[in-house]
């Protein structure tokens, strides 16, 4: 999904108690059942939601928020604090979690009866079909995931773009192609895909596959006033100030086993300084006992919160969904041993210190993170994968040996791309110094953060190493390994195009046996680490705190977010 420069960051669930202990945090039990009624208050430093338009929403926390309150999707994840349990699908807008008669090439979902929009009209198959079609209007519906474009069986033009340009462009040929790929028969919607996708029913958890009613679609401006089919509707939304949700009287709980919809009213306050949010939640006074924040704790207060037992029941220190790493461009550093030498030389301990120390994250050993569930297994990268152990402070001698063993000169200079910030400047300076000790001449290339990705995603402008972060779009490493390490992936900045490797990734993606697929993702993750396709630095951690009378709070694995659908408040 989202690269690590997204507006919001989520928090992932750590299923392993050992990891939690190592993080220095304590697992909070804030999952007590709430009562119906009251006002739940959110406090955030953000000035607005990145997007509430379902087809444009692509940030973990916002996806969880919108799916909990406003946008129902065909399927959803289970609401559970247990990560493995949470990774299981449940039916939401559809009657079941989808069926495929042909091994993933065609997927069918039936829309439930009785699901209504906030104005009382029924949610139909055509609404889902129309919603999905909006993704194709890439000039207006920006920022959202584009899986509908890449997965549906719709022809591409000479430039590789879909011939269907979305519902705002009148084009009979494109429309016919879309109508053939997405078919409504009564309440049954059928998606015909260009290639088998074994976990397409996970893909449709994204709100990019949520319904939008054609007569309510205001295109660019739909972001400001989405028509709800969830338990709440928007009463007012003033950016930089406040979003207020009130109950949607046309939501029928009988059609919805996913959302408990406990509070009567939800107030989402924007533009509250981070330090003030933390102070207020720590003080836990007045109405702030019913407040919660999707933001991280102010770093200055971390020690106070995590060393004081009085916060034990309402603090969290868990993995976020992101892995932080540097791509190693195989076109610039083609020799495998040279790439391994980079990995061996780096002082990861120093990088973590610069990022914030223990609270910044755990040492990463690959592109897949433990909180994804069954697709993760330790790669052993720093134990033996490079030939000998590499401590967190680096192993310069091993790096020199690997370069010598390669039989080639290292292709100096090695340009390191990164979004220019004070912290990143220090991190890259550390990297340059460590690589220098191994005889690698690295050159920092700090780029303006706002325009960073358009530059580095141009192969002509990309350097030898590229700073990045990645979180899975859904709980399957099919949204990690192919996206990062296959040339057809959306973020394949490692530029690795070995034919055998690509075939293996393609085969893993098409696997319908989930357990076997998980084993293959684990193996591919290990292989990617051994090949030095990335330099993994951190499995990010995030720290949060909630008011004492907020109920049902825990970190929900799928989006590394609060479980919005079940949050409530105790007697107000």
């Amino acid at each position, binding site marked *: 999904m989202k690269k690590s420069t997204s507006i919001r960051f989520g928090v992932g669930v750590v299923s392993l108690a050992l990891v939690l202990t190592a993080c220095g945090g304590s697992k909070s039990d804030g999952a007590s059942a709430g009562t119906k009624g009251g006002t739940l208050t959110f406090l955030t430093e953000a000035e607005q939601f990145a997007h509430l338009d379902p087809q444009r929403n692509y940030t973990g926390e916002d996806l969880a928020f919108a799916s909990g309150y406003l946008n129902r999707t065909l399927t959803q994840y289970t609401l559970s604090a247990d990560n493995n349990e949470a990774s299981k699908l449940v039916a939401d807008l559809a009657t079941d979690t989808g069926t495929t008669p042909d091994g993933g090439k065609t997927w069918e979902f039936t829309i439930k009866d009785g699901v209504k929009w906030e104005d009382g009209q029924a949610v139909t198959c055509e609404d889902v079909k129309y919603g999905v079609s909006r993704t194709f209007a890439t000039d*207006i519906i920006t920022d959202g995931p584009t899986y509908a474009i890449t997965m549906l069986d719709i022809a591409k033009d000479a430039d590789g773009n879909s011939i269907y340009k979305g519902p705002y462009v009148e084009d009979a040929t494109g429309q016919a192609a879309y109508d053939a790929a997405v078919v409504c028969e009564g309440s049954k919607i059928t998606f015909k895909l260009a290639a088998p996708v074994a976990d397409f029913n996970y893909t449709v958890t994204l709100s990019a596959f949520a319904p939008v009613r054609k007569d309510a679609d205001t295109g660019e401006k739909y972001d400001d006033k989405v028509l709800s089919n969830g338990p709440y509707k928007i009463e007012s939304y003033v950016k930089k100030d406040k979003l207020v949700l009130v109950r949607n009287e046309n939501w029928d709980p009988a059609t919805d086993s996913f959302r408990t919809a406990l509070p009567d009213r939800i107030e989402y306050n924007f533009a509250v300084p981070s330090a003030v949010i933390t102070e207020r939640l720590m003080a836990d006074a007045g109405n702030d006992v019913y407040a919660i924040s999707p933001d991280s704790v102010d770093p200055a207060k971390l020690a106070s919160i995590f060393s004081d037992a009085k916060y034990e029941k309402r603090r969290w220190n868990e993995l976020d969904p992101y892995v932080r790493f540097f791509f190693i461009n195989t076109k610039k550093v083609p020799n495998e041993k040279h790439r391994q030498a980079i990995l061996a030389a780096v002082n990861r301990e120093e990088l973590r210190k610069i990022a914030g120390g223990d609270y910044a994250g755990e040492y990463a050993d690959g592109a897949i993170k433990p909180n994804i569930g069954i697709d993760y297994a330790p790669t052993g990268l720093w134990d033996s994968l490079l030939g000998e152990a590499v401590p967190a402070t680096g192993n310069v001698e091993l790096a020199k040996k690997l370069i010598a063993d390669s039989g080639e000169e290292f292709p100096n200079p090695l340009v390191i791309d990164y979004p220019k910030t004070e912290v990143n400047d220090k991190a890259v300076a550390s990297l340059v110094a460590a690589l220098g000790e191994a005889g690698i001449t690295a050159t920092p290339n700090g780029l303006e953060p706002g325009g960073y990705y358009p530059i580095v995603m141009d192969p002509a402008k990309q350097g030898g190493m590229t700073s990045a972060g990645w979180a899975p779009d859904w709980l399957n490493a099919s949204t990690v390994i192919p996206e990062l390490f296959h040339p057809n992936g959306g973020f394949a900045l490692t530029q690795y195009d070995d034919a055998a490797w690509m075939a293996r990734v393609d085969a893993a993606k098409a696997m319908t046996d989930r357990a076997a697929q998980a084993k293959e993702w684990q193996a591919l993750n290990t292989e990617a680490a051994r090949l030095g396709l990335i330099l993994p630095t951190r499995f990010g951690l995030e720290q949060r705190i909630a008011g004492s009378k907020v109920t049902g709070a825990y970190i929900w694995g799928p989006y590394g977010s609060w479980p919005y659908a079940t949050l409530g408040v105790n007697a107000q």
Partner: protein
Amino acid sequence: MFKYIIRRTALMIVMLFVLSIVTFVLFNAVPTDPAALTCGKSCSPAIIEANRVRLGLDQPLYIQYLEWIKGIFVGRTYGSGSQTFNCDTPCLGYSFRNGEEVTDMIVRAVPVTFYLAIGAFTLWMLVGITSGIYAAKKRGQWQDRTIMGITLVGYSLPVFFVGLLLLIFVVVRWNLLPYPDYYSPTKDPLAFFQTMLLPWVALAILYAAYYTRLTRTQMLETLGEDYIRTARAKGLPEKIVVRKHAFRAGLTPIVTSAGLDLAGLLGGAVITEYIFSLPGMGRLAIGAVVEYDLPTITAATMVAAVFVIIANLVVDLLYMAIDPRVRL
């Protein structure tokens, strides 16, 4: 005077016109490509180009400027096909980052900043002038020294420090006031007052310190003049001497400073608005800068400039009221 006002107004329009060109060119000539910022991860060159056309960024800069000016006077149309939408007069542009017309954003933000600035201004002028006069009258005595000591501290404390201190202690720790949650004074006067009280105080502390010192200095200067001695020798009561002769004569620099300070604040009190979560012009401008939201940056700059120019005009008019020798 009427002629003077007409002349100044005409000059003001010319200044705004020149300023609009400079502002527009300055912000639109930055190396950042606004079209590239309109889409995220899936930002292919084709999408960037399509958005460049949709935003009108494919046109030469002067055409973009003329379109912008046209929008202010007659409105303009954005988008194409079924997704065309109008931006009504006065259209200051469309923020694609916020998905909103800039005029709407400005109209929403200006009253917040206006109330903040006016409230703080009233407070600091009352406190600053009163204590300045009092300190001057008690020159060299303990009262003077105490006031000067306090103003030195007040002047040294940055707004972000005072603001956070007030917020954390008065609101979070002591619960003497609810957390600032902006309401219009016409909608909920009590909530408005409770929200604005701390921002007013935070801003006023700094400015009051400055105005106390300024007033004291001016008063000391005029109180030492011969005509003051003459007034006292004539047997005028001290109250009249101070108010009608000394203070009025020393008022000109205070009015100059006050006008410009108020105008500057109307353009946005960035730090105060940030600390107290007030959705005013300061927040709007700083958010636009962070997000490279060029239409909003341009409009916010223009609005701030209008306030400064108007304030200058008002100050000039006030000179005439204060000092009858001034003829405009």
